[in-house]
């Protein structure tokens, strides 16, 4: 994964510090998480949401957090305009009606994924409020008026670059990389 065109912007330590900060920000705003649901967006956003869910329980084992995972493939606005994205599974055994939902994604880029996620979410009920957490915010590249409430880090990128978040396990080589599109990871 290491070559001239790839730049690592997060190492493992920095990543866990950032995740910790995001968790404390969530606790600050949501207290005991009563009436709050955390929902990761398939497929890469769940890597972040799972980690955050796990870390929140470690920080405060007494709190009981509702957690779900949402697949947005059928709601994308670029269906038939690009390669097929094979759908992942929904894990929505939770009620979103009347809840505060924290949507979690790895990278906030054009905002179109979040637009689709909002549509998908509303098919499961009407939340009182929806917040957005993004580990990486690619500034100045939004195509829709969407902003995140919790941001791991804002970065400047150009369109030909890609941002990859690797977050497998505690032992894995976690991190965030920026790569120009010609590079195959």
């Amino acid at each position, binding site marked *: 994964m290491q070559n001239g065109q790839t730049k690592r912007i997060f190492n493992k330590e920095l990543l866990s510090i950032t995740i910790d900060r995001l968790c404390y920000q969530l606790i600050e705003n949501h207290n005991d998480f009563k009436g709050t649901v955390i929902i990761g967006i398939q497929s890469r956003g769940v890597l972040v949401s799972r980690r955050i869910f796990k870390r929140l329980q470690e920080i405060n084992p007494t709190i009981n957090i509702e957690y779900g995972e949402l697949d947005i493939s059928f709601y994308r606005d670029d269906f*038939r305009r690009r390669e097929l994205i094979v*759908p992942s*599974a929904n894990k929505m055994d939770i009620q979103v009606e009347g809840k505060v939902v924290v949507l979690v994604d790895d990278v906030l880029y054009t905002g179109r994924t979040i637009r689709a996620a909002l549509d998908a979410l509303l098919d499961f009920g009407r939340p009182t409020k929806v917040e957005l957490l993004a580990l990486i915010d690619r500034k100045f590249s939004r195509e829709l008026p969407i902003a995140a409430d919790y941001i791991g880090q804002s970065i400047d990128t150009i369109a030909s670059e890609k941002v990859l978040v690797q977050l497998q396990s505690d032992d894995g080589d976690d991190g965030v990389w920026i790569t120009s599109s010609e590079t195959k990871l």
Partner: protein
Amino acid sequence: MSQQLSVKHLLGIKDLTKEDIELIFQTADNFKEVINRPIKKVPSLRDITVANIFFENSTRTRLSFELAEKRLSADVVNFSASGSSVSKGETLIDTVNNILAMKVDMVVMRHPKPGAAVFLANHINASVINAGDGTHEHPTQALLDAFSIREKLGNVEGKKVVIVGDILHSRVALSNIFCLQKLGAEVMVCGPKTLIPKYMQDLGVKVEHDLIKALNWCDVANMLRIQLERQDIKYFPSLREYSMLYGLNRTILDGLEKEIVVMHPGPINRGVEITSDVADSKQSIILDQVENGVAVRMAVLYLLAQNSGFKQ
């Protein structure tokens, strides 16, 4: 896992690869989850219009397709041959081209003539889905049958499936044979000699004329309907005799060495190929097949729409 189907039309299982079938199943899993939600609808095909053209009677398939299309947010137009200009002598291509001139993107067609779907696909631009062409193929039925076996038994590979009944006139049988074999199942056909075509062995299919032997061999029995409407001559002496020799009842089922899964593509002739107590028993997955039919057809429509897209 391949990311798109290898075909632009679904004309028969024969044209599909194993990877295609697995992609359809994987997508159907997701749609099955969708149709069990309170809001059973996703916006994927909102810019697509589908014409359901039925030159032959159908209840289940047509309803199933229509529901699948509506749950994908497609616009739907229905056409049936009776009471249309077909009775005034219009040809198939003229009929379909007139429908396509009204800006239709996909065509779902059932037709009494084998090969009608292939013929249509060669002459029009829209994606064609074969919803049954005479005695040839009925691909979505085979897909939903295999999907239901996979759901019930965990896997299709290595399973033994017997198809019982009117194999000669059955498009369901032929599509099922192709589909199950591509997925690695063993297939046997069972029925009176007059209703089993001679070339069956060439397809690598076992042939058995004794129902009890066939049932003892299999994990899954797919009981087909006797298609009286396609029988221009007498293939067996009477329905009563057929029912006595090839009908599945509780006594036969209880006498088997192991518990088998019972399927039926519908419509059921209760008391002919299958008795009511078997059709309504726990071993029967007939209604699961119908439910899965919608999910599988959604997957097929979704994946074909993707292939006919306007990618940059």
